[in-house]
């Protein structure tokens, strides 16, 4: 006879063992959950009704509007990865910064941040930068370790800068709004870019031979063509960033819709980049672009009512009242023409099909980890596992700080062999209630974990970013160089964690400031989202972290 107190530790131990043997995580989770569920029913710890709640939970996951953002952002990333934007950016900025000592390093960091602000996939950034910047860095005598390290690390910035997938997942698990998570992540993102750049600067003083400047005569572009190249990369990026992040923060769209619009933007960008882009579609593109620009000027003026004289405001309102709808029709017609092009150009059609295939599989994989962990967690709470964890963690010396240090060290080591989806779905739900009880702001907690989990991409020898880099790096780069190269950046990342712990204001300050355009108040204008109160209430409402009812 197993006593009730033993169930939770046994379950947790069983999970660790069964995950380690290497069968797909979701099924191990589900099986451990169900197995212990039936044992508990047999021993009378709870009723069969608890297990009958499982399908409703699965339904709650599937009807979750926030999680719908995962396929959209993945699709956007998958399209952008193949459309040549990263190449333009790297080539332009590389030549712009190149002559400075360490310049290619700065270029990679900046491009990593820009790509990060557009989409949310590490793979895309690392692969693009590895393919384009790494050979250039090698040619001009950059140190191998430095070059691979800066590329891997900059690729992971994507994880922290909104609109990152990690933040969406964490928002869901912590029961906070995605908009808040995004707002909170801005401060640390900026600090991280600065910290990385500072390291490059430091290297350029301490070890100048690692990061030589490119001789000016070897640049292929000068003057206006170079500026044009940079603009050709940066302008579309800014438009996409506005389309995705701007619309979220201005309250024009939910994060999910922003992802969908970003995908449309990515498709347009992919079309514009193709040489097969037809003349008639080109005309449609420019007409549409003009139409949307004409609309956005008065719209932008109206966004700052305090700074504008009344005449301008009245004029803008009047203009929009008359011309908004016709101009939008023109814009949408242009958009439709360009989108049509993406179906007509065979290579592009193939690209889109491939992108949706890989998106579908990633989505199914991610959502199934969540389904598996839901099954596990429900039973785990049913046998008071949450109380057990809470008891363990609240017994730590040092209260709040002790808890945070423990959690971060724990996650740091877990990140060696679990990736962030697994940590976010399996571990974070166990930690969050304790954090909430200790009075820790969950947005801050989430952003902190996000910074920490970035290391999971860089840990030698299992880090994803290192894998990607290895797969595309030229042969003369040794694997050991990639592994050693990552270490200083992992250290920087640990410093970042310390910074975020020491200055919570970095996260929360942006939250308070955002009150006038509160991203949490994004409302769809139709009387929608009632469904989540009715059926999915359990899942949609912020999890209350209480134990489910049992016998």
């Amino acid at each position, binding site marked *: 006879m197993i006593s009730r107190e033993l169930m939770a530790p046994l379950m947790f131990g069983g999970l660790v063992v*069964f*995950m*380690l043997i*290497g*069968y*797909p*995580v*979701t*099924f191990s989770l*589900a*099986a451990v959950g*169900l197995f212990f569920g039936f044992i508990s029913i047999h021993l009378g710890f709870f009723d069969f009704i608890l297990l*009958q709640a*499982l*399908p409703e939970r*699965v*339904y709650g996951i*599937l*009807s*979750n*509007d926030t*999680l*719908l953002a995962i*396929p*959209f952002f993945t699709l956007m990333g998958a399209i952008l990865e193949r459309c040549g934007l990263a190449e333009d950016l790297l080539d332009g900025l590389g030549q712009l910064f190149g002559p400075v000592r360490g310049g290619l390093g700065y270029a990679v960091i900046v491009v990593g941040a820009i790509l990060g602000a557009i989409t949310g*996939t*590490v*793979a895309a950034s690392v692969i693009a930068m590895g393919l384009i910047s790494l050979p250039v860095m090698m040619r001009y005598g950059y140190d191998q370790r430095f070059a691979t390290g800066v590329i891997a690390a900059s690729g992971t910035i994507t994880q922290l800068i909104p609109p990152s997938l990690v933040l969406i997942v964490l928002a869901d698990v912590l029961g906070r709004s995605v908009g808040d998570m995004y707002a909170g992540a801005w401060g640390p993102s900026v600090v991280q870019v600065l910290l990385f750049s500072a390291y490059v600067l430091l290297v350029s003083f301490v070890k100048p031979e690692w990061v030589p400047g490119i001789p000016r005569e070897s640049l292929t572009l000068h003057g206006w063509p170079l500026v044009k190249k940079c603009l050709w990369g940066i302008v579309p990026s800014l438009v996409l960033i506005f389309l995705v992040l701007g619309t979220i923060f201005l309250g024009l*769209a939910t994060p*999910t*819709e922003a992802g*969908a*619009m970003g*995908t*449309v933007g990515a498709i347009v960008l992919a079309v514009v980049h193709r040489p097969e882009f037809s003349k008639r579609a080109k005309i449609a593109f420019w007409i549409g672009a003009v139409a949307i620009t004409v609309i956005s000027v008065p719209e932008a003026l109206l966004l700052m009512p305090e700074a504008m004289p009344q005449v301008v405001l009245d004029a803008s309102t009047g203009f929009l009242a008359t011309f908004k*709808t016709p101009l939008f*029709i023109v814009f*949408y017609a242009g958009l439709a023409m360009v989108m049509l092009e993406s179906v007509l150009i065979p290579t592009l059609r193939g690209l889109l*099909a491939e992108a*949706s*295939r890989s998106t*579908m*599989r*990633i*989505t*199914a*994989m991610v*959502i*199934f*980890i969540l389904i598996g962990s839901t099954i596990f967690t429900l039973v785990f709470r049913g046998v008071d596992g949450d109380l057990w964890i809470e008891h363990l963690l609240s017994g730590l010396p040092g209260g709040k700080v002790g808890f945070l240090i423990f959690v971060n060290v724990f996650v740091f080591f877990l990140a060696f*062999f*679990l*990736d*962030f989806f*697994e940590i976010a779905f399996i571990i974070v739900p166990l930690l969050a209630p304790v954090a909430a009880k200790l009075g820790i702001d969950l947005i801050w907690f989430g952003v902190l974990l996000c910074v920490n989990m970035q290391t999971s991409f860089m840990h030698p020898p299992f880090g*994803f970013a290192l894998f990607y880099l290895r797969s595309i790096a030229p042969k003369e780069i040794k694997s050991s160089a990639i592994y050693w190269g990552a270490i200083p950046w992992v250290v920087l990342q640990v410093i970042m964690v310390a910074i975020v712990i020491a200055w919570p204001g970095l996260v929360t300050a942006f939250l308070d400031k955002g009150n006038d355009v509160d991203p949490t108040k994004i409302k*769809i*204008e*139709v009387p*929608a989202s009632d469904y989540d109160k009715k059926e999915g209430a359990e899942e949609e409402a912020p999890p209350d972290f209480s134990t489910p009812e049992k016998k």
Partner: protein
Amino acid sequence: MKSLLALSRVIDAMNERLSYIANWLVMLSCLISAGNAFSRYAFGASSNAWLEIQWYMFAGMVMLGTSYTLKKNEHVRVDIVFSNLNTRRQIGVDIFGAIFFLLPATLIMAYLSWPIFHNSWVENEVSTNAGGLTRWPVKIFIPLGFALLSLQGFSELIKRWAMLTGHMKANLHYERPLQ
């Protein structure tokens, strides 16, 4: 063995076909979501049906796509030990996992989730939102998805067994999915 492998091929083919639907749902739901946002902004026109159809499609892409993801060996593993095993041991892990983890879990979930579809069907449940959709078409994805997953798990089991007994060339390529 031969007839089992034939069965496995049938299952694989069926789930692959269904995955095409799932692929389409990705693109379609994305366009609907963007279109909905665009039309709401420009014309103030939007509807609950369009909002709901997005997550119906989401449910569809996950539950119809998961079996094919399993076939492609793309459900994420903790590969710290697994990647160091030889091929026979890896096959062993997969057989063990299929028998003790996947099949029981998916069969139980399919069984448990049947009632929520069935009740919705019998009661002809409709969304509580104005202009919302009938619920059973989305709820059927849950038992259906788990049932398809157990079929695919069975097919994988057959294939692993065939690999172990030399009826089939071992092919256990596992690569962590891109993120």
